[in-house]
């Protein structure tokens, strides 16, 4: 690999790199050159995307079949891109680790999808959706990308309706909208509580149609293990057939990663069990910068952990906070009592107490942090797991009195059922218990306006990239971004790259291809040969605990430094003491997990370094050292209004930090206040 693009300390100082009083991450990173060219077009913001589409070169339809595209992941961002590029006539290979493309985790999204249709005539517009998204991201996203997202949002709804996505409708037969996540306009389209499922099935069907047409080949139960780069360009992947264990080489002219987020670095999250960072991390090690990895979204209304056997967490729609009141006992002694026997005066409705104007509807990060604080104080409720009760009550008794059982059933039916199925408790009788859980990551591989990473020919879409949500994501915007990238953005920007084709022919015996394949085999052999004493899961759980404790909702300099030490020694132990049984030549789920957890260790360390560097509280990221006198989040636009893009510098080197300054021309930066 090339030497990282770094600058000396003196140059860094002169360029304003070391402005400000703090450099908490000193010693953990090397300053690099700034990222200047994001390829965002100039001119008025509303014209930039039109201009870019016009300037992006075209590929003659007769040449498209000769150009090959690999797409990793079949969630909204991957399936939509595979379908669209197949329709355009390119030769597409689509990979997923699941047994069918339809199972990707986009399917689990409940709430809805935003679009600036303004069907309610309530003052919505492309500009307002853009504004809300930048503000929601606490001014840490790139404005050109966000504007484009808002702009294409309306096309998504048209496309999905035409595909037969059964969105909720009004009696007149037109589409229904609701207000979501605290915004003041109704712009969210939904299909009951299963919007993600319906959108993904739509994209999956479009994908299967192209399989039938012969433009797309699907590789299910295949996991990307390595990126192939030749002369600095992405030219394919090494994938493992998870059934036969065969390590396969797939070459192409361009590679797209739509491999989702890495929330499972926390072990417990609302992600599917198989969600992992390996595809993105392998690309990172080959030269793709990882941007803002510490930006994690933690969702306040999840079902709490019931014991140390817990394997994942289940989210319940935030809409529950519209009618439920959140409380814990004032006295620790009451924590194991039946909540119905705790009198009103002994309950602490802490959100209503601390935030009288927003009460239970404060933003996700505030609600989450407050819940963790009261539980850490020892006032949590529910079962004690590892010595702490991690849960707070979400009480519907007042709402049941007001709306009646019937009213509540109409509003929240499936959520109450879901809660009862998982916990065995009836929320009509006993208050629900909730606790925050990791839900989404805003960080991801750095991409330019064209969604191209720092490796030419490697494009990244959906949750796997960092581009649109800044430091926090608005509700109902993840689905929007996945489909925007796959249906309407990537197909235009990728053609500009492909217009350089035909590309030089690469064969499987090219030294770079052989090297990639051998490194994968070496890693597999290593995991199988250690024959230590601890299972992969036990390491994963321990790593997750470290991340949750020190790089979760609230981070501090001391905590993060401690976490980095803990992760490094745990990783060493993992490589010496992990126990992976079975062989490489069959379906081997422990072996699959071992590779993923190995990459989570390296990612976890980088997340802590990123969090350590960013000594400010913004979006979902709260730094203990950066708060107002009232204990609220304090952003530092003078020092941190940049994207932190990290370059891998080698196994035994510290990462290199490149900064992309965030400049807003169409919007003014403001501090938020929810008191």
């Amino acid at each position, binding site marked *: 690999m090339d030497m990282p693009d770094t600058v000396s300390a003196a140059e860094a100082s002169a360029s304003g790199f070391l402005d400000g009083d703090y450099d908490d991450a000193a010693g953990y990173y090397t300053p690099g050159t700034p990222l200047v060219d994001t390829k965002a077009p100039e001119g008025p913001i509303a014209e930039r995307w039109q201009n870019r589409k016009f300037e992006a070169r075209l590929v003659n339809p007769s040449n498209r079949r000769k150009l090959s595209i690999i797409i990793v992941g079949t969630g909204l961002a991957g399936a939509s891109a595979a379908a*669209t590029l197949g*329709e355009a006539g390119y030769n597409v290979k689509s990979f997923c680790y*699941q*047994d*069918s493309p*339809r*199972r*990707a*985790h986009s*399917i*689990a999204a409940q709430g809805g999808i935003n679009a600036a*249709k303004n*069907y309610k005539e309530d003052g919505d517009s492309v500009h307002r959706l853009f504004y809300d998204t930048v503000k929601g991201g606490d001014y840490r996203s790139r404005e050109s990308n966000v504007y484009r997202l808002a702009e294409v949002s309306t*096309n998504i709804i*048209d*496309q999905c*309706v*035409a595909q*037969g996505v*059964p*969105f*909720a*409708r009004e*009696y007149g*037969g*037109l589409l229904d909208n609701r207000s979501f996540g605290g915004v003041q306009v109704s712009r969210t389209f939904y*299909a009951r509580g299963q919007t993600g*499922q*319906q959108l993904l099935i739509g994209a999956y069907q*479009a994908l*299967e*149609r192209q*399989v039938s047409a012969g433009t797309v080949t*699907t590789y*299910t139960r295949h996991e990307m293990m390595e990126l192939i780069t030749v002369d600095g360009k992405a030219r394919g992947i090494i994938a493992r057939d998870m059934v036969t264990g065969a390590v396969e080489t797939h070459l192409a002219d361009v590679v797209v990663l739509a491999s989702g987020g890495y929330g499972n670095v926390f072990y417990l999250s*609302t992600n*599917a*069990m*198989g969600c992992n960072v390996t595809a993105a991390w392998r690309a990172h090690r080959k030269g793709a910068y990882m941007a803002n990895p510490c930006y994690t979204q933690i969702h306040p209304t999840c079902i709490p952990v*019931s*014991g140390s*056997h*817990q*394997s*994942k967490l*289940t*989210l319940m729609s935030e809409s529950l906070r519209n009618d439920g009141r959140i409380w814990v006992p004032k006295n620790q002694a009451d924590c194991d009592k039946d909540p119905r026997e705790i009198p009103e005066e002994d309950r602490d409705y802490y959100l209503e107490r601390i935030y009288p104007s927003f009460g239970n509807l404060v933003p996700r990060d505030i609600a989450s942090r407050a819940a963790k604080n009261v539980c850490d104080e020892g006032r949590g409720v529910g079962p004690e797991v590892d010595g702490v009760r991690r849960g707070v009550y979400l009480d519907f008794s007042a709402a049941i009195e007001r709306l009646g059982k019937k009213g509540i059933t109409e509003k929240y039916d499936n959520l109450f059922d879901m809660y009862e*199925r*998982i*916990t*065995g408790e009836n929320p009509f009788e006993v208050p629900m218990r909730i606790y925050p859980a990791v839900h989404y990551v805003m960080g991801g591989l750095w991409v330019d306006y064209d969604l191209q990473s720092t490796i030419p020919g490697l494009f990244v879409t959906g949750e796997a990239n960092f581009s649109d949500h800044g430091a926090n994501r608005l509700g109902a915007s993840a689905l929007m971004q996945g489909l925007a990238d796959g*249906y*309407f953005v990537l*197909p235009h920007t990728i053609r500009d790259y492909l217009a350089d084709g035909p590309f030089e022919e690469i064969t499987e015996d090219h030294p770079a291809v052989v090297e990639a394949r051998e490194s994968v085999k070496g890693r597999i052999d290593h995991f199988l040969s250690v024959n230590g004493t601890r*299972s992969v*899961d036990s390491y994963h759980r321990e790593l997750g605990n470290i991340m949750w404790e020190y790089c979760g909702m609230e981070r501090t300099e001391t905590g993060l430094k401690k976490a980095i030490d803990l992760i490094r020694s745990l990783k060493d132990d993992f490589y010496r003491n992990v126990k992976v*049984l079975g062989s490489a030549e069959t*379906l081997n*789920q*422990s072996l699959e997990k071992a590779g993923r957890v190995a990459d989570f260790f390296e990612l976890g360390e980088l997340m802590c370094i990123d969090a350590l560097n960013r000594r400010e509280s913004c979006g979902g990221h709260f730094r203990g050292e950066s708060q107002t006198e009232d204990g609220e989040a304090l952003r530092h636009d003078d020092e941190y209004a940049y994207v932190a893009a990290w370059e891998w510098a080698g196994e035994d080197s510290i990462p290199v930090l490149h900064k992309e300054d965030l400049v807003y021309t169409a919007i003014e930066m403001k501090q938020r206040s929810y008191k």
Partner: protein
Amino acid sequence: MNLTLKIWRQPDASSAGAMHTYQLSDVSPDMSFLEMLDVLNEQLNEKGEDPVAFDHDCREGICGSCGLMINGDAHGPEVTTTCQLHMRSFSDGETITIEPWRSDAFPVIKDLVVDRSAFDRIVQQGGYISVNTGSAPEAHSVPVPREDALRAFNVATCIGCGACVAACPNGSASLFMGAKITHLGELPQGQPERDSRVVNMVAQHDHEGFGGCTNIGACTAACPKEIPLDVISQLNKDLRTAIRHGH
């Protein structure tokens, strides 16, 4: 809880399988069924025995990956997916029999993991509406009566888990197929391809080796999303209509 587990173990597609018996103690009633298997696997790993392979992913009842025959019932005793089944549905001291989906069209890959790719191939034969990206008309240009939209939604909830096939004595995938035919057939956007869709999907279904429907209803009883049996009537009606139209 203490349990006796009888689990189908089969090293790969070409080897013969057999039931193996395991004892598991200290099972919490709050565990999900799959978390119970996780605990078993941790113990097997400790002992140096190959863990039991099973499909699973979202663990919230929506991706359709998981699916086990539990005491002879697809997804076990409750109307839900295996991942959403909890151990409180079983009693202390019980013997639980765990098998993979039973169907020739879903060959076993390993232990409890089966190959359901036949479902994807059925969808490839018309389980979609042909609309290229960017060519869609404005979403409000075609109103859809709310009743139709509701029926379409109610059957679009199919998660493609395959429980209907596993439960059916004939190994038929008619409920799975009927759900898709009804979903797209209820909507105005699905009309142009309505005839060819049903004809081609049924042909692929039969080609894959799924059996015919004899109206037993075991499929709908096992369906975690409660897809109603009348989607199969709809399927048959659409097929008759298509044939009458000359397909």
